[in-house]
């Protein structure tokens, strides 16, 4: 009896499975390439890059219908872990892979990861749109955000933030495992210094901008692609008294804007032909155009 039930279940599952496949084949047949099977590229990693990766995958589906790209987020570390275990073909990463990580990948899969810089992300420092502050130096930012820093009020920056009721600087930050949190710490505070406790640690790039937009006392950092009309991006100077620069594509590429980072993709060893053609397309004007429309900085404009 149980055997018979099991048999039926297996058969039904088999039918559903083959049915699903044949449907996919039908759509495949419509394509010019006329290939029987669709090649799937698994792509996972950085949350910062997930919107970008998804936009790429969607646009590429109409360029090359025989290849389908499955994108998921989870964080840069998650992407590297998946590459190590061989469950993804391409890992997205908003920071460079550490030496120990790339060694682990090589140890587990026998192939060393190959690195591609696919775009740049500038971290903007946001304040409320009514805040009179226009520029800030890295040193001032470190004194606002860093452990032991002594700037706690807007008047210490030489401005009168009249919208803010008690002049207190409300620091908006990210949760401690976010790639953005780690990068901002490195760029502003240096490798070994920690953030001051008591910052509001939000859980997404968008939430930071949202909170700053509604809070006249707040200062926060997030990707420049998340800017809205309700917030103001500060110009940033490397040292007090230096010229300050806003987050623009030009400033990121020529290095005058100090807090920008490359966005990486990693493949296992030399990419397979399908992966290579996807990466080639990403570096083409069409692919880099999507980088620009999603709010990041394209590569190769030097």
């Amino acid at each position, binding site marked *: 009896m149980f055997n018979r039930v099991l048999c039926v279940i297996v058969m039904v599952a088999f039918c559903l499975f083959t049915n699903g496949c044949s449907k996919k084949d039908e759509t495949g047949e419509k394509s010019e390439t006329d290939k029987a099977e669709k090649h799937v590229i698994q792509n996972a990693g950085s949350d910062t890059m997930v919107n970008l990766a998804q936009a790429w995958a969607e646009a590429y589906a109409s360029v090359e219908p025989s290849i389908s790209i499955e994108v998921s987020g989870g964080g840069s570390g*998650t992407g590297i872990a998946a590459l190590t275990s061989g469950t993804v073909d391409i890992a997205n990463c908003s920071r460079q892979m550490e030496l120990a990580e790339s060694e682990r990948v090589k140890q587990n899969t026998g192939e060393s990861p190959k690195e591609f810089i696919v775009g740049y992300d500038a971290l903007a420092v946001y304040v409320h749109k009514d805040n009179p502050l226009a520029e800030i130096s890295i040193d001032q930012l470190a004194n606002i955000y860093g452990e032991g820093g002594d700037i706690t009020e807007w008047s210490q920056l030489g401005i009168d933030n009249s919208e803010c*009721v*008690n002049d207190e600087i409300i620091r908006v930050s990210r949760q401690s495992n976010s790639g953005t949190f780690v990068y901002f710490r490195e760029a502003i505070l240096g*490798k070994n210094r*920690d953030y001051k406790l*008591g910052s*509001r*640690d939000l859980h997404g790039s968008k939430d930071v901008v949202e909170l700053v937009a*509604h*809070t006249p006392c707040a200062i926060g950092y997030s990707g420049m692609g998340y800017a809205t009309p309700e917030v103001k991006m500060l110009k940033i100077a490397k040292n007090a008294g230096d010229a300050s620069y806003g987050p623009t594509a030009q400033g990121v590429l020529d290095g005058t804007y100090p807090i920008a980072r490359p966005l990486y993709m990693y493949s296992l060893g030399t990419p397979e032909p399908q992966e290579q053609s996807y990466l080639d397309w990403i570096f083409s004007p069409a692919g880099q155009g999507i980088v620009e429309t999603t709010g990041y900085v394209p590569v190769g404009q030097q």
Partner: protein
Amino acid sequence: MKIITNVFHQLGRWCEPVIEGIIRLCGISAIIFVFGIFFFVFREGMGFFFGGLDIVEFLTSPEWYPTSVSNKRYGVLALVAGTFSVTALAMVLAVPFGLGAAIFVSEFCGPKLKETLKIVIELLAAIPSVVWGFIGLTVMNALIIKIFKVPIGLTMLNGGIILSLMSVPIIVSIGEDALKAVPDSYREAAEALGATRWQVVYRVLLPTAKNGLLAAVLLGVGRAVGETMAVLMTTGHAVNMPLGPFDSVRTLTATIAAELGEAAVGSDHYRVLFIIGVLLFSITFIVNFVTDLVIKGIREKA
């Protein structure tokens, strides 16, 4: 005919121990699950609990730096204080409202209004916590800034109000059940002695139903302590020893939710989050244990 009943009789005799065994297993399963969960949570954290974690620092230091490069510090005092303060504030707001509404629904209002109220209160309970969090993040934040003239609205007060709104439906529905369980003869006897309706409630119903009402309140407390998403979004998620309702705080549950996803499996940070899980488990265990003692004490006095 007689043979058939005989067969059933025999079958019943054989089946009974089997059914009894199954029911026994169902009863014991709760114990198995609780100990199983405790065991697995503890096992994940054990490696760090016995090797490396300074327990005294863990419980008494407010410095939470799990991802610091140079100086990792695992102190949860600020998180414990955050959990308790938000829960206490939520209960101060929710208990009078919840019990008041329970008394009104069960004793004072007409049948038509009663049906409407019960449906609306159940609807209130059905709103997902992430939606509550969203309301706190957008609506309440702006309201608190405007009304109380404070620099930021993501505070203990915001979290407390949202949590109280979430626990009121539980307190109302269980409290109402407890009042309904008081036999009508009590009410009739009291009214026959010339008591007003308020006197009936105050002198007869509340003392009789106090066990049930206490259970209602404590289930509300449980809801508030265990809530994660809403407090993550509304309290500001700042590691901070709270001094008043306008300070931002961070709770134990929110810390686990925000950080576990990206902590490397097996790292100290990962293990310390599981130890926080054990701590939360112990707190709820103590609350339940004390409740049992209190209820027993009330019963013995009565």
